């Protein structure tokens, strides 16, 4: 089958990192370990597994970080090489049923009995066994050698991972369900009043939508967005105030009637959801969050240098938000349908065009795009 394969090649990792640093995000694709290949289809690991033929597969920020070799080494023991990336997937089963894949590879998928405490409690996104069981290590489909991923013409999925796509939902809508589930989950963690959402890429925009239309928060949503199209989307999806990143502190100060001490607001908002995860965004989050309140990190961070004194002094809670559970997926389906979030899919590419696709995804905001995806519907060998 045709697939984009990500191999463990240290020299290419280094080249990708250098290229991305020197030439900008996404540039690692041309020199890094990702290549197009003809590989064997993954074997079904057990009786409860099915083959899924991807139709659309999104390109996520974490994929871009991986391709540019900017991901944390934390992931090394919980991925297995070579792997076929792609965890935002709408595909079809052999009988033609369309499904969205919930990519987390939990105890159920790994055949682990008894399941870990988190899985028993239904908090499957926090599964403690992502490197164990009968599968190779891999926190998700798209990072696991055993399962394949969405950037290939076939993958295998456990029945616990499947969500049937309702009739009438387009592939473009369906491919947005997985990132929407992330957003739904993030929005549900802390009951919010006035909320800041940092970043207006796919995850930021979907988080705004989830706050407004799933959690139905009554407070003001202030969002940061670098680019005009992002600002338009942020407004449409429910942000009350959209500002450029360097204007956030000013906007929060005005809205919260806060004073300033040095670079720190004395008050702020009750909840900051950081959908970027960079050093700058985390610093900004600590700057504008109200004392005693919460910062939720949704954007995948890496190794970061950060002065945590304000966190200590103002008793701020810094909390991560990773993935979703089945309930989040159910709500994500509703959210995507209600707001027709398939409109966020700005462009699709064939697998052969992966260089252009990755480049476009890495420059999405600047080029007025939101979600870039691979379209495998016309690939041969499907």
């Amino acid at each position, binding site marked *: 089958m045709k697939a984009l394969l990500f191999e463990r090649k240290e020299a290419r990792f280094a080249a990708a990192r250098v290229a991305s640093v020197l030439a900008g995000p996404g540039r690692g694709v041309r020199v890094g370990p990702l290549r197009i290949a003809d590989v064997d289809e993954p074997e079904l690991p057990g009786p409860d597994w099915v083959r899924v033929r991807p139709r659309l597969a999104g390109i996520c920020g974490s994929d871009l970080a991986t391709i540019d070799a900017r991901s944390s080494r934390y992931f090394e023991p919980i991925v297995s090489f070579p792997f076929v990336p792609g965890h935002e997937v709408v595909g079809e089963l052999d009988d033609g049923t369309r499904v969205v894949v919930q990519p987390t590879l939990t105890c159920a998928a790994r055949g682990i009995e008894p399941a870990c405490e988190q899985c028993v409690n239904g908090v499957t996104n926090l599964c403690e066994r992502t490197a164990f069981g009968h599968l190779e290590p891999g926190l998700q489909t798209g990072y696991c050698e055993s399962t394949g991923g969405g950037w290939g013409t076939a993958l295998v999925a456990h029945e616990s991972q499947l969500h049937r796509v309702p009739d009438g939902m387009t592939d473009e809508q369906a491919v947005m369900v997985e990132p929407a589930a992330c957003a739904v989950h993030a929005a549900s963690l802390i009951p919010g009043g006035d909320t800041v959402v940092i970043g207006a890429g796919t995850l930021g925009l979907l988080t705004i939508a989830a706050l407004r239309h799933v959690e139905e928060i009554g407070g003001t949503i202030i969002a940061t967005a670098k680019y005009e199209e992002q600002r338009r989307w942020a407004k449409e999806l429910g942000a009350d105030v959209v500002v450029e990143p360097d204007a956030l502190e000013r906007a929060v100060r005005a809205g919260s*009637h806060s004073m300033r001490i040095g670079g720190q607001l004395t008050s702020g908002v009750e909840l900051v959801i950081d959908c970027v995860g960079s050093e700058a965004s985390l610093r900004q989050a600590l700057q504008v969050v109200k004392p005693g309140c919460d910062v939720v990190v949704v954007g995948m961070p890496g190794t970061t240098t950060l002065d945590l004194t304000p966190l200590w002094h103002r008793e701020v809670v810094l909390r991560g938000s990773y993935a979703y559970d089945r309930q989040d997926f159910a709500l994500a389906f509703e959210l995507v349908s209600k707001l027709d979030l398939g409109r966020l899919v700005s462009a699709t590419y064939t697998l052969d065009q992966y260089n252009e696709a990755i480049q476009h995804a890495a420059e999405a905001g600047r080029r007025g795009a939101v979600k870039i995806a691979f379209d495998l519907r016309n690939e041969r060998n499907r």
Partner: protein
Amino acid sequence: MPRPGFVLEVDKSTPPTLFWHGEGFRLERLPAGSRVIYAPEPLAALKDPDEAIRHALLNPMGDSKPLPELLFPGMKLTICFDDISLPLPPMRRPDVRQRVIEAVLDLAAEQGVDDVVLVAALALHRRMTDEELRHALGDRVFDAFNPFGLLQQHDAEDPDNLIHLGTTDQGEDVEINKRAATSDLVVYVNINLVAMDGGWKSTATGLASYKSLRHHHNVRTMQHSKSFMDQHRSELHSSNWRMGKVLRDGGVKVFQIETTLNNDTFPDQFSFLQKREWEWSARDRAGFLAVSKSLERTPDRLRRSIFQSIKSPHDITSVQAGEVEAVHEVTTANVYRQQLVEVEGQTDVLTMGLPYICPYNVNSVMNPILVMCLGLGYFFNMYRGKPLVREGGVVIMSHPTPWAFHPVHHPSYIDFFEQVLSDTTDPAELEAKYEEQFATDPWYIHLYRTSYAYHGVHPFYMWYWGAHALQHLGGVIIVGGDPKAVRRLGFKPASTLRDALEMAEDVVGRDPSITHLHNPPILMADVR
């Protein structure tokens, strides 16, 4: 004998017209048939201004007694004076405030008055720096009062130094500076640069709190002030006069001193600015070229600093003292004598070049909101009778309109520009939706009181100043401005005057009548 104002009809032989363009100039060719309004030439200076001041204090107008008779030992005397917003540009030393205050202090000393406090009547303007105060008051006064806390700046947010004196018959709160209101005598020292200045507006506005100011600094008042430079057709003035009555009835005794300046605005190296273009000498042309070329090569910051360091050679043309209304009537006539130009009929398109300075950016940055205020607030309203431009007409302003703000002086302006104007430019809507939030923001209040910031509500007032024009006009175009900033203001950007005139035709029709309000110096059109 200075020549009166003049309206030129442009023909083929008319040389290009000088337009201010912020910290620079443009020479523009206006279409044949356009009119250019020039101000009267500078009136003659008082030969002995100090003697004229003393004479005014001893021979007051209206029912006021001479100043010495109002002064007595043991009394509480407060001398209030106009702040940094006047005159424009700041005048060469000695400033007229220094001359007048020294004369008042001499009389006070002669009468044995020792409880004297000076108060800069800031209203909601920024505080003046020591250097600015020293320039306005002179070394002698500054050194005698400032070290002892006797030189104060009105704080409209200091509850301990405000007093509510009642309400007008229309329910307007009158709350002013407590020290002034509880003094045996308030001497107010005015510089009446334009007809709006002075009268009861000095005390009722300059010494007021936000609670009091909001009754006349609002959209409704400004839309009913046609114009606010014409006291008799200005709701702004009517409200201040009502408040003046409350002050008078409440026992606040005001001895008003008003001064007028001639329009000799710029020093010799900029002499070409004061002249009609066809009368430029070879020296003027050389001066214009030298200044223009060197400015082109000067970095923005340095250029701003050069212009802000200009001190005007303004001369004093009159001094009036005594009872507020009697004084103000004569003063206004003297302002008109210097500025009024008769103009026949309105125009479809009014053009104006906007300078680098307005009342609210002395030693500061002319931000886009101030550009709007200067053009549509001040210049548009420089009329008596009818607006120069017809209803539904177009104003074309020339200014670079940079997206730039002074972070210390104008912090709330930045938020106003980012948050408010990106939502709405409609004066009534933004007043209803945002004014209170900005006016009561504790951070802005803190900066106003302790730093050098304009009050949080001030950018709203700047916008309201243009409310009458916004209601009246069919369109506003800015030539040579930052397009993004111009659009944020709700106006249209144009690269050249020719483009702007073509764009204006979309609003007012083909072959419009065009009138240019020539500046400097400032003038007021008496539109028949």
